[in-house]
């Protein structure tokens, strides 16, 4: 039996260069249908620690450099066998979306809108607002030319929401300059570029 695999990412082609995994092990491209799982052979699952999480992030970043289309895989995914047959179409679609792109993450802080329970219609409208975050309209106008796709994740606390923008690789400095030049009524904290963590199918709950 082959050793278990610590999976770092999925792609539709093997990496264009040799890449090392979180433990310095060579990353193999393991074919699985039309996809390739980019994984290192490990003897046991990694312990969950700050260093291990950083090392996983670093391995995914190295792979992203060597793969134009890359979907990161969640930390700690140890697999004996890989079967994506039921999800292949959506994974391939996601790979097309992220090809040549990377992610910016915006944390949005402020006072959450209270859910309006006055009527069914008002409640649905307040739900829609919590997803669309109207306070970000000036920001969306400023970065709109750079953003290829957006995902939002409402949290409903002082951290109102997280917003994920998919941009062309290399355009992060321009994106950050545009964000810095916008005046908003909410505070935002941008980070990135990241590999496209939030654009994997099922990435957001």
């Amino acid at each position: 039996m082959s050793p278990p695999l610590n999976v770092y990412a999925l792609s539709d082609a093997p990496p264009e260069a040799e890449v090392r995994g979180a433990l310095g092990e060579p990353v193999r491209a393991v074919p699985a249908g039309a996809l390739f799982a980019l994984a290192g052979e490990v003897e046991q699952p990694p312990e969950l620690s700050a260093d291990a999480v950083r090392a996983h992030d670093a391995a995914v970043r190295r792979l992203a450099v060597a793969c134009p289309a890359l979907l990161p895989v969640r930390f700690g995914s140890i697999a004996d066998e890989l079967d994506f047959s039921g999800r292949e179409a959506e994974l391939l679609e996601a790979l097309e979306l992220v090809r040549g792109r990377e992610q910016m993450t915006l944390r949005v802080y402020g006072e959450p809108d209270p859910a309006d329970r006055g009527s069914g219609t008002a409640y649905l409208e307040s739900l829609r607002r919590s997803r669309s975050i109207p306070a970000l309209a000036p920001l969306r106008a400023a970065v709109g030319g750079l953003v290829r796709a957006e995902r939002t994740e409402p949290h409903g606390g002082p951290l109102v929401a997280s917003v994920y923008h998919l941009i062309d690789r290399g355009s992060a400095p321009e994106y950050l300059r545009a964000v810095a030049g916008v005046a908003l009524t909410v505070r935002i904290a941008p980070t990135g570029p990241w590999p496209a963590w939030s654009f994997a199918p099922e990435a957001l709950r």
Partner: protein
Amino acid sequence: MRRREEQGMEILEGADQSLLEVIDHVLNKGVVVSGEVMLGVAGVDLVYLRLSALLCASDRVQPRARKK
């Protein structure tokens, strides 16, 4: 081996903002590959809830965070 949820909680308690960001991306996002996932579903939810709380807390300690 210690319970994995406990390990998750421990790294969160000592984390600065940049590590919290890495943890949120690496542990809460990305493709879930079937097979053994290291944290059980319950563990991920616990870590996620605590992570959200910490991301909020770091906002409160910064004065700029207050809405004008």
